[in-house]
């Protein structure tokens, strides 16, 4: 079906939405029919029967505009997207007090409060990274209610634990009494599900899940980074493969929320050689749809978060999840081959989450990585001077670099202070990667590649 036809039909068929929300099989298993169901796919939370849309709205990548010299969220665009999303059955919205320079929760609150509260689930986090005192943590928790204009959170997460294992978890949540506090809040009904988002090594994960096994804390759900690359090729010594995390959670029957299904867009914009193989199989489906179908194929997944920046990925995602086709075994093997091929490109494993920002020395860290990755992916990357179109590639890289990043925020100004290292959920050695990119730039400028 043409996308335009599809929009017409779904637009006209808003009435059928209520039916769609109820009438869909929550446990979608691999039924390899040619045409998927025409409604949004929902998964049921076994704990409380929440029917959660398989695609959720991540509120970390909303569009920003300049207003009175300040970067602020484009509220009109957000409202439009949220309306469309709810209209088309998306009912899970994930935000945090830290996102978008602290503006995400407020914008989400404004957009969502225009809809009946029982139409959607709100997920937010205790992002007490810099200040984990009880006062600051509770203030952050309470402020989230105000920002989001609600008196309960459907899903509440301890934000990004894992790195540092139980010790770090204790420091941020136990020693300050926050776990005790949050458990009480849950009993009071202000938190319906308590979980955590995880970035770290397998051992660290084992420690945290051990708390569940021992009965000390109960995790209602866990948010993990999962996609067809991280499934078996998680980057770095410090990050666990998604296949391991998934299986450990599946064993225990803990619902899984997925973040970074696209690796910050990198799996939507893949190198040509890989895109071609995907298009050979599914000429009319977007590259991104492969990554989403991968996540949706696994039954323990409750929701797949997508940080949609504008209407276009939203339309595409609604399309993917209203005509949802799980991947076959053969297709999963195909994606594993694609992941292996992806690993051959010298890409920096950055998902553009901006946790490292602001760099105290003014470096645009995610911008530099994004420009580099896009150049590699889109073939604006010279390998050697002997290359036929070396001069063209050189100019393309250097000009686009200056366009993307102001000179003073480029990689050569990184002083290796290491401030960013602890903030990166991907555990990227940021200074080293910046130096690597700067060396490449220097080689281009000096013609010594």
């Amino acid at each position, binding site marked *: 079906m043409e996308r335009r036809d599809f929009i017409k039909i779904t637009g006209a068929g808003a009435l059928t939405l209520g039916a769609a929300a109820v009438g869909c099989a929550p446990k979608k298993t691999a039924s390899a029919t040619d045409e998927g169901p025409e409604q949004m796919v929902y998964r049921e939370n076994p704990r409380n029967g929440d029917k959660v849309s398989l695609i959720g709205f991540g509120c970390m990548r909303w569009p920003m505009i300049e207003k009175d*010299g*300040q*970067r602020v969220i484009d509220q009109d665009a957000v409202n439009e997207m949220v309306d469309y999303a709810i209209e088309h059955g998306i009912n899970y919205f994930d935000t945090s007090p830290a996102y978008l*320079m602290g503006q995400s929760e407020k914008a989400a609150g404004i957009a969502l409060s225009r809809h009946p509260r029982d139409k959607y689930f709100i997920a937010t986090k205790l992002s007490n990274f810099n200040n984990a005192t009880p006062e600051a943590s509770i203030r952050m928790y309470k402020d989230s209610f105000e920002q989001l204009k609600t008196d309960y959170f459907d899903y509440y997460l301890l934000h990004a634990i894992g790195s540092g294992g139980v010790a770090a978890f204790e420091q941020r949540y136990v020693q300050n009494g926050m776990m005790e506090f949050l458990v009480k809040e849950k009993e009071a009904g202000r938190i319906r599900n308590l979980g955590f988002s995880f970035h770290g090594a397998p051992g660290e994960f084992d420690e945290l899940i051990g708390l569940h096994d021992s009965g000390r804390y109960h995790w209602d759900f866990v948010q993990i980074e999962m996609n067809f690359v991280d499934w078996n090729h998680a980057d770095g010594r410090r990050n666990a493969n998604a296949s391991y995390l998934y299986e450990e959670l599946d064993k225990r029957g803990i619902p899984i929320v997925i973040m970074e299904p696209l690796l910050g867009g990198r799996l939507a914009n893949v190198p040509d050689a890989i895109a071609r193989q995907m298009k050979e199989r599914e000429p009319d489906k977007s590259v991104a749809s492969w990554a989403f179908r991968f996540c949706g194929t696994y039954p323990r997944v409750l929701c797949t978060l997508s940080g949609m920046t504008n209407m276009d990925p939203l339309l595409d995602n609604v399309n993917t999840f209203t005509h949802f086709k799980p991947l076959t075994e053969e297709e999963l093997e195909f994606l594993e081959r694609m992941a292996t091929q992806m690993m051959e490109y010298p890409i920096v494993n950055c998902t553009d989450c*901006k946790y490292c*920002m*602001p*760099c*105290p*020395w*003014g470096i*645009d860290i995610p911008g530099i990585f994004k420009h580099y990755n896009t150049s590699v992916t889109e073939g604006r990357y010279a390998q050697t001077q002997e290359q036929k179109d070396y001069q063209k590639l050189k*100019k*393309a890289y250097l*000009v*686009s670099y*200056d*366009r993307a990043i102001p*000179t*003073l*925020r480029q990689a*050569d*100004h*990184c*002083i*290796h*202070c*290491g401030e960013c290292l602890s903030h990166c959920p991907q555990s990227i050695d940021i200074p080293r990667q910046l*130096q690597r990119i700067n060396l490449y730039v220097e080689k281009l*400028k*000096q*013609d010594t590649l």
Partner: protein
Amino acid sequence: MLKKIRVALAILFWLGITLLFLDFTGALHGWLGWMAKVQFLPAVLALNVAVIIGLVLLTLVFGRIYCSVICPLGVFQDGVAHLNVARKRKKKDRKPYSFSPEMKWLRYGVWVLFVIAIIVGVQALVALLAPYSAWGRIVQNLFQPVYLWVNNLFASIAERANSYAFYDKEVWLRSLPTFFVALVTLVVVVILAWKNGRTYCNTICPVGTTLSFFSRFAMFRPVIDAEKCKNCKVCEHNCKAACIDIDRHKIDYSRCVDCFNCLEDCKFGALKYKFAWGRKEVTEPAGNDGGRRAFITGAALAVGTAALKAQEKKVDGGFATILDKEVPERDIPLTPPGSRSVKDFYRRCTACQLCVAECPNNVLRPSTDLKHFMQPEMSYERGYCRPECTRCSELCPAGAIVKITKEEKTQYHVGTAHVNPDLCVVEKGVECGNCARHCPAGAIMLVKDEETGYRRPVVNEERCIGCGACENLCPARPISAITVNGRHNHLNED
């Protein structure tokens, strides 16, 4: 016909040399660089004997063709004068000019002053008077910004179209005093040309005066055939050099710039450009010099320092604010690699601003120091003298910067870096070492401070070439913790 050839060549030359000053990409200087090198004053200062002899011979054979074709300021004045003449013609005023006697006192006075200035080394005066320097100054300061803005407009369009054909280039004011001098120069030259054609060339321009010594004896020159002449004075009234005296049927060849306008103006065929060597020189009519026009000079020198600091940019809240760098104190100025010594550089430099206009790293700018006023110096707030770049050395027509290769560049030791520990971020407990990491000469080492345990930079003076990578990339702002001071001599073998 001769006039048409003159006009065509003049336009070509003028466009070429002006484009040379406007272009910032380095794409044109391979093609057009020679146009700067055949300019008279740069050739003299570069001791470029071939060009000097060539130009003198040219003048001896054909007269002051140089002034009508090669000199960009001369051609520019013709353009301005032409506009006014065309305007007057519309108003039926057919007598835009008339003969005036040579203003010897002013003309030779300025020339003597100029020669003394070269010998003594008052380069600011040389640059102020010399036509090529004046044109370079005007183009770099007044026209190049416009050119860059248009380029940047194209660049933003190209960016939207994902094209790399145009790229953005920062437009910044390098020196307010020099900008002001350029503006005054332009205004004065335009007024003089508008009202009286070639006044500047024949009373002030030292190159014009120098060439006039030879043009008096030119082999070919316009000659009036007194028998055919009907004394209508059309030629005299259209001579922008005011050098045709029809009452006496004489032409002052010291001032004639061979524009050939008169040849076509004469309906009676009384004027011919022909071989006239050995004919008795025109006796100069007596006249007094009366200071008809005062030339405004020097006034601009009194302007204060370049206090125009770029405004702090409003940045995205997601980014830390970066302060602009300030120019540190430098006891000895920094002049580019390719200049043998500071003294030699400033002796030869005509302050034409060609290197300033071309410097792709935003390093070169006109000095505000009165001793080297308008002559370029280097500073590293916006960039540094990058190892692969030798563009200024390829361009300099005056030999102030000798042509060097990338490899030869490393032998030039134009300055030495010094660390100011009080400003170094390491002293605040931050790991850094950015200067050492980026030093292309490997001159900076990190040593452990016994007291604090911090690894702080030290400079091996012998290795340092003064390129400024360390100063530019130093995170300390607004004054870098590592700054480069100039060196008198740049080559070690002396």
